[in-house]
């Protein structure tokens, strides 16, 4: 009688432990299934997006500002050079849904979205300072560099060119030069010259006005 009671208890014990193991394995499997099963896809997509928008990347002019002419020439091989984790991956890079570069057909895979601006240059604009009238040139906000060509007339010495009041170019013996200058993007710049009396000649200022488009960069990668 006593031995048979033990048998019932043993059976019950086995059922309990088996049940608990089944539940435990089910929970563990659920956790694994929920975890990121595509770390390589995500790594590749993140690396490509990060490298495309980085401040020191060849595709940008500053952080999150893509250079339109470079982006136009982008292809999968160049992207691979920029971001080695994307090697041999099916990849698609789009700007607002418009494909920039693609290789293969990434179905599934990981998607990364970034907010960027695309900066393109306008055709060059030229403004001229007529030295004899002492006029000034105003360069609008957002321009980072300009070319100043100083061309003094006969019997004229132009010593100083100023931007917003600070001295930009100076030569005590007289300027006759063609120089590229860097400007602040944040404020408009006024360029003036300090001519003497009866001065003639011209100063030509050439610059490109940047055109900024706001886009969403989407990278889909499937290793």
């Amino acid at each position, binding site marked *: 009688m*006593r031995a048979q*009671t*033990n048998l019932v*208890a*043993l059976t*019950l*014990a*086995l059922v*309990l*432990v088996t*049940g*608990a*193991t089944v*539940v*435990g*394995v089910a*929970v*563990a499997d659920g*956790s*694994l299934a*929920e*975890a*990121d099963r595509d770390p390589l896809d995500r790594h590749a997509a993140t690396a490509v*997006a990060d490298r495309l*928008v980085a401040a020191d990347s060849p595709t940008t002019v*500053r*952080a*999150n*500002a893509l250079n339109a002419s470079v982006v136009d020439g982008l292809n999968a091989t160049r992207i691979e050079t920029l971001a080695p984790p994307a090697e041999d991956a099916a990849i698609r890079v789009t700007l607002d849904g418009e494909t920039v570069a693609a290789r293969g057909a990434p179905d599934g895979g990981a998607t*990364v*979205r*970034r*907010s*960027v*601006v695309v900066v393109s240059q306008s055709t060059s604009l030229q403004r001229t300072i007529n030295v004899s009238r002492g006029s000034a040139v105003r360069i609008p*906000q*957002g321009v980072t560099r300009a070319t100043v060509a100083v061309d003094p007339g006969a019997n004229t010495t132009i010593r100083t060119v100023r931007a917003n009041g600070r001295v930009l170019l100076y030569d005590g013996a007289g300027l006759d030069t063609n120089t590229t200058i860097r400007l602040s*993007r*944040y*404020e*408009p710049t006024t360029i003036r010259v300090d001519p003497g009396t009866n001065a003639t000649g011209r100063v030509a200022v050439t610059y490109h006005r940047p055109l900024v488009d*706001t886009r*969403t960069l989407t990278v889909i990668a499937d290793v």
Partner: protein
Amino acid sequence: MSRGQLSLSVVEAAVGVVLVMSVAAGFTVVSTGPAASTPQLDTLARDAATVLGSEPAANGRDSRLTALARSVESFATTRASTRDRLDELLPADVLFRVRTPHGTLGYPQPPTAAVGSTTVPTRHGPITIRVWYG
């Protein structure tokens, strides 16, 4: 038996069940990280902050972020254009809220949504951008 003792096998089984369950509980506890969408939202918030921080504001002195933090008047004049700019910058399904030393702008934040955020220090105080899927 007359004293109704619990069978030793059942006691062992109970200990075994506790052991197996504790291991299973370990799986659920360990994998409770942040929601999968948070890193993506954090990235979008950082992108928005980067663009706003490198874009000139209308006053011709500051970046947009600095203009928001500079003063109450500066915040008031920059507020509407910044809201439009963020609407344009972030993907259509992403909403935002910006907290500055002089007030907030953007959409009311839902209490339960997964939120990505970034805080940018400026000379006039910190600016926090929060984004979520709306």
